[in-house]
């Protein structure tokens, strides 16, 4: 029998999509039964009280969590998001309901053995509820009490060999697309780079030292399956700089209808027979493709590597062999001065262990932002305030047409004094000799 009546939430158990209400109710029932005789370290009815509190929020249309919360484990400045309910007497099970961020493996590949270990720990010392995964990538343990934090951290590190993720004004948990693990478009090993940089910058991740948060994301190609261009202060997006590899025989397979376009992604509807001229050549943004007789030709010098033709004919077209990545900087959500996506500032860089070239760029960006960034100013905002030029100066990169979509249209152009013949120190009397007042 449920502890609280939840008529509004109950409606969310209907419909075909997996219902979070049903799932939480099941966990509540499992904890009430406790067949495994677990010695629960947080209230056994935590899930019931969570549903009760949520039902109340549905009724009021307002949140019932108090403002903020500062908890954590010794040695780290982040990783735990403290949360307290504002109706602790009515819902004592969620009086404390802290979230723990646990670092996730690259591409989120798991073994059941590992997940069972996590679940056993969380069943004993937490609510049994999780978020798989947070938008930044972490495994999220949803709901535990302050005394359990160090206990959980001890087991995570000593028995599961697992660390916490990041929170606060620091490097947040980096995440990646599935990459070369199972995608033929991946231009570099996203998981290897993501893992290496995560390990390299553990200090920056666990102990907030930045003006504000900072995120890395790693996409194997411009399809951006982890959305790095929109959700990371530095986004690493794979690309290549030689020619697209064409298998002319497979091209004929697509034209002849033996191979479905887009690997069959549009088979749910009849779009007619595949028309390479309309669906590939005609849609190429730079119009750099054509058919010569039956042969497909690409003027690779004019290709911007948008991925469209490769996406449509994955069996016939492959990424080039000289691979690397582009680095874009400054993506952020709207607060404070408007949303931004990443701006291209390193058009091409090789990806070779131990990634010194990439780390050099990261180090220089951080040196600048840590010194110049205002309190709670994202990198993208500092770029707006001090100028893109400044980012190039601190990273030692030369301005390049690829870094702008279009040149500026206003004429408010700054010059450095040394660029101007005679400098800026002028005597008005010298001017007056030739121009009377």
């Amino acid at each position, binding site marked *: 029998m449920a502890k609280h009546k939840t008529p509004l939430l109950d409606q969310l158990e209907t419909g075909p999509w997996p219902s979070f209400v049903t799932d939480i109710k099941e966990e509540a029932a499992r904890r009430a039964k406790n067949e495994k005789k677990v010695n629960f370290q947080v209230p056994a009815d935590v899930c019931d009280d969570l549903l009760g509190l949520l039902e109340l929020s549905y009724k009021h249309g307002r949140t019932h969590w108090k403002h*903020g919360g*500062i908890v954590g484990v*010794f040695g780290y*400045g*982040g990783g735990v998001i403290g949360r*307290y309910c504002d109706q602790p007497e009515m819902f004592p099970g969620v009086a404390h309901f802290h979230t723990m961020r646990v670092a996730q493996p690259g591409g989120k590949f798991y073994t059941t053995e590992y997940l069972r270990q996590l679940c056993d720990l969380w069943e004993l010392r937490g609510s049994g509820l999780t978020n798989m995964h947070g938008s930044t990538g972490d495994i999220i343990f949803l709901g535990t009490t302050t005394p359990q934090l160090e206990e959980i951290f001890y087991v995570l590190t000593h028995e599961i060999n697992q660390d916490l993720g990041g929170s*606060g004004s620091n490097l947040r948990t980096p995440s990646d697309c599935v990459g070369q693990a199972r995608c033929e478009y991946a231009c570099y090993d996203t998981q290897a780079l993501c893992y290496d940089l995560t390990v390299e910058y553990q200090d920056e991740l666990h102990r907030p*030292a930045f*003006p504000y948060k900072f995120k890395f994301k790693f996409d194997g190609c411009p399809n951006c399956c982890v959305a790095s261009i929109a959700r990371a202060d530095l986004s690493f997006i794979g690309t290549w700089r030689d020619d697209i590899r064409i298998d002319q025989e497979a091209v004929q397979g697509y034209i002849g209808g033996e191979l479905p376009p887009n690997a069959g992604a549009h088979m749910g509807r009849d779009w007619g027979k595949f028309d390479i001229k309309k669906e590939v050549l005609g849609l190429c943004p730079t119009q750099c493709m054509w058919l010569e007789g039956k042969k497909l030709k690409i003027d690779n010098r004019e290709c911007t590597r948008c991925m469209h033709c490769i996406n449509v004919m994955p069996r016939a077209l492959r990424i080039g062999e000289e691979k690397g990545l582009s680095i874009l900087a400054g993506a952020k959500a709207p607060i404070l001065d408007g949303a931004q996506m990443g701006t291209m500032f390193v058009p091409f860089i090789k990806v070779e262990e131990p990634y010194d070239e990439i780390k050099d760029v990261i180090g220089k960006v951080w040196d600048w932002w840590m010194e110049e960034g205002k*309190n709670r100013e994202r990198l993208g905002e500092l770029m707006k305030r001090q100028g893109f030029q400044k980012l190039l100066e601190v990273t030692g990169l030369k301005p390049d047409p690829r870094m702008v979509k279009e040149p500026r249209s206003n004429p408010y152009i700054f010059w450095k004094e040394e660029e101007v013949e005679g400098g800026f120190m002028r005597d008005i009397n010298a001017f007056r000799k030739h121009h009377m007042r």
Partner: protein
Amino acid sequence: MPTVEFGGKTFTVDEDGFIDTFDNWCEEWVQHVKKEEGISELSDEHRKIVNVLQDYYRKNGIAPMVRVLSKVTGYKLKHIYELFPSGPGKGACKMAGLPKPTGCV
């Protein structure tokens, strides 16, 4: 709001153990937080950080950024964590009696 007693004094605190108002800060509070925050011996370096935080707060009405704290005290962040295991926010600011850090933590 819960209260804690230490050294014959009573403090009103929030769930995270931060003092309700900076005005009620006193030596007993320092001793109380020392115990809570896993600090065995209070050194001059601890005192220096607390003093810098308080001076900055009195002058500016906010806690300093981590970088400013490092610059003024001359202590690297790593050393600050050696002194205050839960860090400058949860550890040092709490001991100095400053308001709880807010935002997207």
